[in-house]
């Protein structure tokens, strides 16, 4: 079935080429691209064009990986399953482009729905597993709660304006309180973007989806939620409250997401929670930009918009790298449990090197694109601190503290993913006998890493290329000092890599003549240690869990030894990480809704005679009502 997905990949390349040409023209000339299908007009300004390019790169990375991922897939699937998967993949590509170029809320709603359904079908690739079906269904329901928000917004616009174009949205917001329309829209877009407390679908779905799809959903699709937030909140005016709410929700999301990432044992859930964190940071920057726009602090605003663009690109690349590396590991070991991995660096060094680089990138450490994209966030945060307005200054402090705390926590989370998951000694025979993924399954990650390195060394250049996009959101040209600072960051990172290379060479030269012996790891005199003496994913997270325990939803099942227990008997100890919001809020709501619906089902007896009686009663009732003249 390898051929089938190659065809899909080819179709995506064609779509990407065609749309990218138009998008690049828009970015270069700054002129609007428009097209009409029937009465629906699609148009692309610089922001839309950027999104189209962004989507294309993400989809191509996923499609390239998908070819080899599905080729290595050992499960038996029917041709129909593959066909459905391929069609849904192309559908997702087209619908995401559709969202980016919609000019009214109704066509946006249409593409939005297509996007949700297509991604739902993609998640269902492993539908033979009950768990996957259950997760996919939950995803579909949550996405429709979000879509309901869009539908309500559409209905409000249609009833008072007669159409749902963005121009009408602007007029509507001038005559009504801003939240009447921003609340449903905000819920719709935040649900997709995974903003706290609407994030709980994200870890489940990303863990259940096949790896090329999780990379695509996490890297690209959820960014369209942010696109929606930016597009609508720039249309609605004034936006001080919207900005402040997004800023604060973004901070909570970032810290909550990365805190949960630390305690996850499932590699892909860990990555998904890291996506929640990064979406939080991006939304925080959007909020900061909106607040700064109303408060008229250009230095804060422009840096925040640049941060939104750069960080989106950075996160897309890194999540492609990480989810695909996790996919290779999953194929080789058939487990996502970090506690059962380890030692992969010896059995599959190629994939592990990619995983290490991806982890260093996603934690925003210098040398890869993350530092270049978080740097403008710091610029906007520190500048906000320095403004004369006390409120903005405090928001600046909060955002800077969030940024550095989230950065530090990301280091804990990803040293755990790499250090426990891939380094050390193998913790299970599956990990010990893992086989390296083929070159074709590692190639897309190297492309993404190369792009990331380009951004890291030339963030100023990319920002100049995107100046049109910044202009659509910011309204002015980018100040020269911001660009020169970004140039400095790029040069600095190139220098860092170069100097590390030189010192490493010097070290090799200096140690070449020295004797090098190998031996076992220091065990304090105990040389018979096996893999089980190592730190595990659970213990590594324990110190964080001790501080932030209640927020991270760790459930321990263990019965302590009672004083009356004379003789030892078998006992077990296990922990499980559950999302606090899903477990404490959504599941009880879901259960009560289900109970209510079940109580309505009383009339569904399943008995044919009862149904015939219902029809009979209905006819009698109609007859009586007609006879008495009510109808």
């Amino acid at each position: 079935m390898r051929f089938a997905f190659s065809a899909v990949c080819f179709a995506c390349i064609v779509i990407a080429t065609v749309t990218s040409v138009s998008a690049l023209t828009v970015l270069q000339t700054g002129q609007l691209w428009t097209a009409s299908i029937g009465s629906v007009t699609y148009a692309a300004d610089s922001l839309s064009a950027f999104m189209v390019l962004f989507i294309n790169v993400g989809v191509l990375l996923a499609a390239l990986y998908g070819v080899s991922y599905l080729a290595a897939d050992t499960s038996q699937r029917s041709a129909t399953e593959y066909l459905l998967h391929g069609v849904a993949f192309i559908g997702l590509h087209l619908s995401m482009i559709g969202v980016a170029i919609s000019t009214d809320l109704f066509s946006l709603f249409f593409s939005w729905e297509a996007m949700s359904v297509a991604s739902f079908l993609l998640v269902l690739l492993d539908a033979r597993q009950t768990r996957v079906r259950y997760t996919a269904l939950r995803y579909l329901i949550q996405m429709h709660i979000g879509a309901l928000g869009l539908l309500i917004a559409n209905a409000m616009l249609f009833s008072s304006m007669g159409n749902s174009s963005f121009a009408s949205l602007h007029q509507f917001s001038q005559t009504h309180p801003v939240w009447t329309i921003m609340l449903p829209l905000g819920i719709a877009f935040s649900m997709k973007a995974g903003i706290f407390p609407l994030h709980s679908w994200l870890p489940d779905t990303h863990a259940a989806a096949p790896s090329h799809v999780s990379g695509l959903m996490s890297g690209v699709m959820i960014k369209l939620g942010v696109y929606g937030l930016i597009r609508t909140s720039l249309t609605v005016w004034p936006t001080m409250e919207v900005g402040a709410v997004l800023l604060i929700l973004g901070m909570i999301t970032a810290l909550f997401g990365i805190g949960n990432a630390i305690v996850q044992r499932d590699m892909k859930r860990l990555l998904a929670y890291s996506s929640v964190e990064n979406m939080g940071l991006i939304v925080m920057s959007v909020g900061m930009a909106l607040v700064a726009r109303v408060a008229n602090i250009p230095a804060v605003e422009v840096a925040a918009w640049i941060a939104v663009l750069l960080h989106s690109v950075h996160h897309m690349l890194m999540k492609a790298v990480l989810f695909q590396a996790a996919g290779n590991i999953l194929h080789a070991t058939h487990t996502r449990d970090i506690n059962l991995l380890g030692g992969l660096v010896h059995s599959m060094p190629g994939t592990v090197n990619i995983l290490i680089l991806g982890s260093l990138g996603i934690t925003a450490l210098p040398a890869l694109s993350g530092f270049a994209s978080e740097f403008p966030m710091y610029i906007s945060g520190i500048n906000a601190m320095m403004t004369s307005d006390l409120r903005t200054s405090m928001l600046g402090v909060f955002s800077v503290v969030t940024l550095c705390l989230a950065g530090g926590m990301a280091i804990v989370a990803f040293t755990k993913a790499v250090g426990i998951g891939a380094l050390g000694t193998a913790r299970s025979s599956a990990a010990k006998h893992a086989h390296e993924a083929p070159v074709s399954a590692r190639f897309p990650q190297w492309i993404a890493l190369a792009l990331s390195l380009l951004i890291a060394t030339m963030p100023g250049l990319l920002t100049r290329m995107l100046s049109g996009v910044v202009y659509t959101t910011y309204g002015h040209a980018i100040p020269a000092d911001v660009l020169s600072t970004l140039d400095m960051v790029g040069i600095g990172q190139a220098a860092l890599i170069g100097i590390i290379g030189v010192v490493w060479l010097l070290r090799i030269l200096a140690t070449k003549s020295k004797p090098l012996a190998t031996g076992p790891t220091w065990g304090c005199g105990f040389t018979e240690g096996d893999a089980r003496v190592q730190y595990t994913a659970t213990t590594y997270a324990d110190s964080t869990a001790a501080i932030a325990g209640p927020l991270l939803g760790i459930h321990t099942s263990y019965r302590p030894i009672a004083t009356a227990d004379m003789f030892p008997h078998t006992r077990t100890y296990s922990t499980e990480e559950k999302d606090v919001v899903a477990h404490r809020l959504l599941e009880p709501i879901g259960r009560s809704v289900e109970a209510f619906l079940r109580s309505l089902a009383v009339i569904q007896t399943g008995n044919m005679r009862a149904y015939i009686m219902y029809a009979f009663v209905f006819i009698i009732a109609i007859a009586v009502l007609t006879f008495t003249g009510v109808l």
Partner: protein
Amino acid sequence: MIALLFILIVALLFVGVINRTKSILGGRQGPGLLQHVRDVNRLFHKGAVISTTTSLIFQLAPTISFVTVVLACCLLPFGGSPALVSFPYDVVAFAYLLALGRTVMILAALDTGSPFEGMGANREAMYGMLAEPAFFVVLGSFAILTGYTSFSEVFAALHIGDGIVSILMSAFAVYVILQIAMVENSRLPVDDPRTHLELTMVHEAMILDHSGFDLALIMVTSSLKFAMFGLVLANFHLPPEMPLAIKIAIALGVNIVFAITVGALESFRARNRMKRNPQFILTLTSVAVLIYFSVLILTNKLVL
């Protein structure tokens, strides 16, 4: 350039002064001032034993960590003379360079598959994460106070006034930077370099398997880190208009006092209980927030 030279000289002596203080206070003869340098030199010439469990990252990490600290040193000014490299918001680069060094060392520790090193790595990651907000709030407050965002400009413009708020602010700042230096350098009260029990180590546990050239590189890195934070502390006391000779004398004095303080602290008190460490480091952030409020008062943004 002068900052780098200064760091180099201080780095040579710093650990020696600490050890000498400790031996005098402990009533021992103790090693000479330059014993540390001789130790490092010997290690540089020795061969190495590496664990069969490890991979490339284990050998690469000390090099990366060393380079990050050297580059971080390049960002520091000396009084009024600007740093080798200076650009707006370079304080962020400073913190992130140190974080990069810490991260690769953590990965190297986990690469050995040792239970002790896993423990040390976990603690190091945790403490690094908790100490970072305090650093950013302090430097952010200085940015508000001076209107600049790079080390060179901040320290050139930093003028500690006479008012009670100003003096309190600078005292808090010195305290927070001092404690961050102790956390970053794995010294008391969060970590005890003298301990011989792996279970009570933090940084020492992480480098148990390093030997030879790499171990020497790690020791050089930690000396440089000490001198680097010593220079940050000294910069508080170096008004740019002073003649260079006096500034060098003051800076040396500050660093000797710093080293003696560290030695005295290590002689007279025990390490915090491990469980108390997160609390202790988080307290630094609250003190840093006090600095922020003092700065708001000083700049008349917050009127009491």
